[in-house]
C-alpha cells in the first residue's frame, strides 16, 4: 500500500527538485478500492488501487513513497481507465539522495476529478491451498474439502480488499522483496539488472511466513463465515476470486473454504518399487480430478492434505496421514502417497540363481555368460478391504529376457528398456505370489541379442 502517496498539484515549474516537491505536498486522496492478486509460487502480490485524483489541465506532479514497505518501485504504474488518451503518465523520476520516493509527471487534458488505477507489486502476502479428506469406512469414497489460506506479513494492513489468489508457476527474475530494498530502484550502472533466483529462496521465505502466521490463522479460521470463490482459467494460471472484500491486518491469516465434494470414488493402491521407495510398500489413495470423480472443474493447487477415515457409524474418525499434494490439472490422476504401509506386505524373493552359456576369450578368461534368476514376489493383503497393487521391477540394464509364470494374476507390461510392471487386485485378507524367470546377459553375451 502506498502509505506516503502525496499527489502534488503544480504548475509546470513549481517543482524543480525533489526537495521542493516534498515541501509542496497536498492532501492524500483516500483509496476508493483495493484489489489484491496473490501468487503462491512466488512471494508476489499484484496490488491494484483505485483512487480519485484532482488534476489540473497540463502537467501535474505527484509524489509517491514506499519507504518501510515491501513494494517494488519499478512496478508502480498509473492508468486512467476510460481516459487513457487524456491522462498520461509521462515520466517517473527517482530523485538523487532520496530513498523510497519518486515523482510522477502526469499530463492531463482534464481539469477536475479523475479516477485512476495504481498498480504495483509487493511481497509479504502469501496463500496456500489446504485440503481435508475423509475416507468412508470401506475406503471406496472420500469427502474432500478444499481451503485457501491467506497470510499477510507485508507490513501493511489491507482493509476491505477484494482478494484473488493465483495458481500457477510464474517466471520471475528478481525477488520482489529484494527490489523493494534497493537504494536505487533500477540499480546502478554496472550492476546486474537482476540476480537470478535460487530455487529454494522463495520457498524458504514462505515457510518462514507460514511459521509466523499459523497461530493467528487458526484463530481467525474459527470465526469465518463461508464465502463463495469464483474460479477462472487464464493462460497457464487459475484465478480464484473471493466474494466481497476482506480485512487482512498485518501478521494475520485467513482460511476460506474453496470447495467441498462429498463422495469421490477412490482406489486404494499399494506400490512397490525399490529404486524409488526402498524395501517398503507404499500406500496410495488414488482418484481423478475429473467429472467422473465429481471434480474436474478446476485444477487442484499443491498443498497439504490431511486425511482421516470414518471408523464408526457415529462418525468417529481415525487419522490416516497427511501428504503434500502436487498440483493436479483438470483430468489428471491424483496420487496421495501416505508412505510405508504396515498391513500390506510385498516382498520379492530370489529363489534361485544359476549361470550358463559361458564365453571365453583368447586367454581363456570368461568374457560373458547368462545369469538365470528365479523370483517370487509374495504379496499379502492383511486389510479388511480389497486393494490394488503395482509392483515395478527395475533391472538397470537393457540386456535381459523375462518369462512370467502362466499362473500369475493381473497384468504385466514392459514400461521401458529396463523396467517392468505388474498390476493386480487382491481381495481382503488374502495373499498371492507372482513368479518370473529372468535371464541377464553379461559381458560378451550382451552382443548376442
Amino acid at each position, binding site marked *: 500500500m502506498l502509505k506516503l502517496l502525496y499527489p502534488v498539484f503544480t504548475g509546470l515549474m513549481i517543482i524543480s527538485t525533489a526537495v521542493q516537491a516534498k515541501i509542496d505536498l497536498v492532501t492524500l486522496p483516500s483509496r476508493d478500492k483495493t484489489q489484491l492478486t496473490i501468487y503462491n509460487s512466488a512471494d508476489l502480490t*499484484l496490488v491494484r488501487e483505485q483512487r480519485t485524483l484532482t488534476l489540473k489541465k497540463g502537467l501535474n506532479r505527484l509524489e509517491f513513497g514506499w519507504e518501510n514497505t515491501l513494494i517494488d518501485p519499478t512496478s508502480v504504474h498509473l492508468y486512467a481507465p476510460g481516459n487513457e488518451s487524456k491522462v498520461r503518465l509521462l515520466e517517473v523520476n527517482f530523485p538523487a539522495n532520496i530513498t523510497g520516493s519518486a515523482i510522477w509527471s502526469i499530463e492531463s487534458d482534464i481539469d477536475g476529478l479523475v479516477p485512476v488505477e495504481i498498480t504495483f507489486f509487493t511481497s509479504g502476502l502469501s496463500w496456500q491451498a489446504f485440503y481435508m479428506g475423509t475416507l468412508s469406512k470401506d475406503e471406496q469414497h472420500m469427502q474432500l474439502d478444499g481451503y485457501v489460506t491467506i497470510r499477510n506479513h507485508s507490513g501493511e494492513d489491507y482493509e476491505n480488499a477484494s482478494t484473488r489468489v493465483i495458481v500457477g508457476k510464474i517466471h520471475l527474475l528478481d525477488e520482489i522483496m529484494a527490489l523493494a530494498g534497493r537504494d536505487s530502484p533500477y540499480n546502478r550502472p554496472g550492476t546486474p539488472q537482476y540476480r537470478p533466483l535460487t530455487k529454494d529462496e522463495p520457498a524458504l521465505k514462505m515457510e518462514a511466513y507460514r511459521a509466523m502466521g499459523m497461530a493467528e490463522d487458526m484463530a481467525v479460521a474459527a470465526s469465518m463465515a463461508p464465502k463463495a470463490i469464483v474460479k477462472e482459467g487464464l493462460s497457464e*494460471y487459475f484465478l480464484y476470486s473471493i466474494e466481497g472484500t476482506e480485512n487482512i491486518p498485518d501478521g494475520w491469516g485467513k482460511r476460506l473454504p474453496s470447495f467441498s465434494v462429498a463422495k469421490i470414488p477412490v482406489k486404494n493402491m499399494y506400490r512397490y518399487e525399490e529404486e524409488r521407495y526402498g524395501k517398503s510398500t507404499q500406500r496410495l489413495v488414488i482418484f481423478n480430478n475429473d467429472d467422473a470423480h465429481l471434480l474436474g472443474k478446476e485444477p487442484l493447487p499443491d498443498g497439504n492434505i490431511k486425511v482421516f477415515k470414518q471408523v464408526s457409524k457415529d462418525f468417529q474418525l481415525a487419522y490416516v496421514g497427511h501428504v503434500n499434494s502436487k498440483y493436479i490439472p483438470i483430468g489428471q490422476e491424483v496420487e496421495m502417497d501416505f508412505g510405508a504401509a504396515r498391513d500390506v506386505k510385498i516382498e520379492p524373493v530370489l529363489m534361485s540363481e544359476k549361470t550358463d552359456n559361458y564365453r571365453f576369450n583368447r586367454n581363456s578368461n570368461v568374457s560373458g555368460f547368462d545369469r538365470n534368476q528365479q523370483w517370487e514376489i509374495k504379496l499379502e493383503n492383511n486389510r479388511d478391504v480389497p486393494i490394488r497393487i503395482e509392483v515395478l521391477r527395475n533391472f538397470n540394464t537393457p540386456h535381459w529376457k523375462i518369462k512370467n509364470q502362466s499362473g500369475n494374476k493381473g497384468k504385466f507390461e514392459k514400461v521401458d528398456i529396463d523396467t517392468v510392471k505388474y498390476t493386480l487386485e487382491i481381495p481382503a485378507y488374502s495373499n498371492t505370489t507372482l513368479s518370473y524367470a529372468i535371464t541377464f546377459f553379461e559381458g560378451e553375451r550382451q552382443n548376442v541379442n
Partner: protein
Amino acid sequence: MKNLYIAVLFMSGLLITTPASARTKLVALPDRENTFIRLDHPDITLIEEERTLSLHKGINKVDFSWKGVHIDPDSIRLAVLQHPDSTKLINVSYPPNEQALVWEIFSPENRQEKIRISYLLSNIDRVITYEAKTNHQENKLDLSSYLVLRNFSGESFTSAIFQLDYGKDFEKGILDGETRRMLFFDVANLNIRKVFTFNAGIHPWEPQKQDHTVGIPVSYELENIKGNQLGQHALWGGKARIFQNDANKSTIFLGEDMAGFTPVGQKMALHIGDSRDLSVTQHKITEERSNIRRNRNDHIVLYDSNEEIRIEIENFKDTPADLKIIEPMQGEWEIRKSSHDFKHIHSGEIGFELTVPAKGKSTIMYNYIRQNIRG
C-alpha cells in the same frame, strides 16, 4: 555541474610554468552550452559537450579536471569547432595524482572559440524495460517500452540532448544519483505465438516420479518485422513484464523475463512461466547392438546400437498447445524412423514441433542408430 570543471588561463611568457600552479589561478569557467549524451553503445556512454573559451593571443592553458567523476581519462578528446585551422591544440599534460589534464591551446588572436570536449563516462547509462499485455487467446500483445536513464557518474547534467541508436534525440536533465523512467514507444496488437518447450536434456523423463509437478516452460515469440508493426530497428534487451486481462476488467501478472537484444527480422522469446497442465513422459524402449566388429584380440572395437525413444504428451488444457521438443543426441547418430518430422538442430540435438490437441494425447516415436567406437 558539480564536480567537473574547466578553467582557462592565459599564459604570458613563462609566468606559469607548471600545470598545477595554473589550476590554482582560475580566470574563467565557461559554462556548458550544448551537451550530448550518446547512449547507443551497450556498455559505455559517450559525452560530448560544447563550450566557448575566451582565448588570448598566444598560448592558453585549459585545465580540465573531473574529481569524483567517472571519466575514462584516455578517452578525452578536444575538438576546435570555429577556427580549426588556426586555433591549435599544442599538447596535453597530466598533473600527478590528480584527476585532471591541461591542454595548451594556441590562438593567433584574442577571440572566442567554441570547442567540443568528448569523453567516455561510466556509471551513466540507460536500460530498457518492457511492459506487455496479452489478449485472452494469447495471440496478440500490446507492448510498451520504457527508457530508464540512470546517472551515478558523479556529474549532474541539468540539460542535455540524449542520443540513442534509434528514435529521435530528446532533451532532458539528469542529476547525479537520479533515475528517470519514460515511455519510449508503444505498439498495440502485435502478433505473438505461445510455445511450450520440453528439453529432454534438462527436464525429467518421468515427471510422475518427481515430488513436485514438473512445469513445461511457456514462452511468447514475437517477430521483430514490419509485417508485425515492428522491424524499424533492433529491440534492445531488457526486463519484460507481461500481464493479461481477466474477465473482471482487471489484469493478472503472467510473468517476466529478460528479453534478449532482437535485431530486425529476428524473434524475441519471453519465458513467462511453466505450465503444469502439459505432461511429457519419455522412455527409451529399445537398445540393441548390431554390426559388432572385433580386433585380433577378440575385443569389440565397433558396434551400432539401435535405440528407440517413446515420448508421450498429455495436454490437460482445454486449448491446443504448440509444443517444441528438444532431444539431445550423443555420438555419431542417424535417425532411421520417426513418427513425426524432426529438425536437425545441430550435431547434438534434434527437435520436434507439434500441436497437442486440447484435452488430448500425442505420442512421438523415433528410432536411431548410434555408432560406438571403442579405441
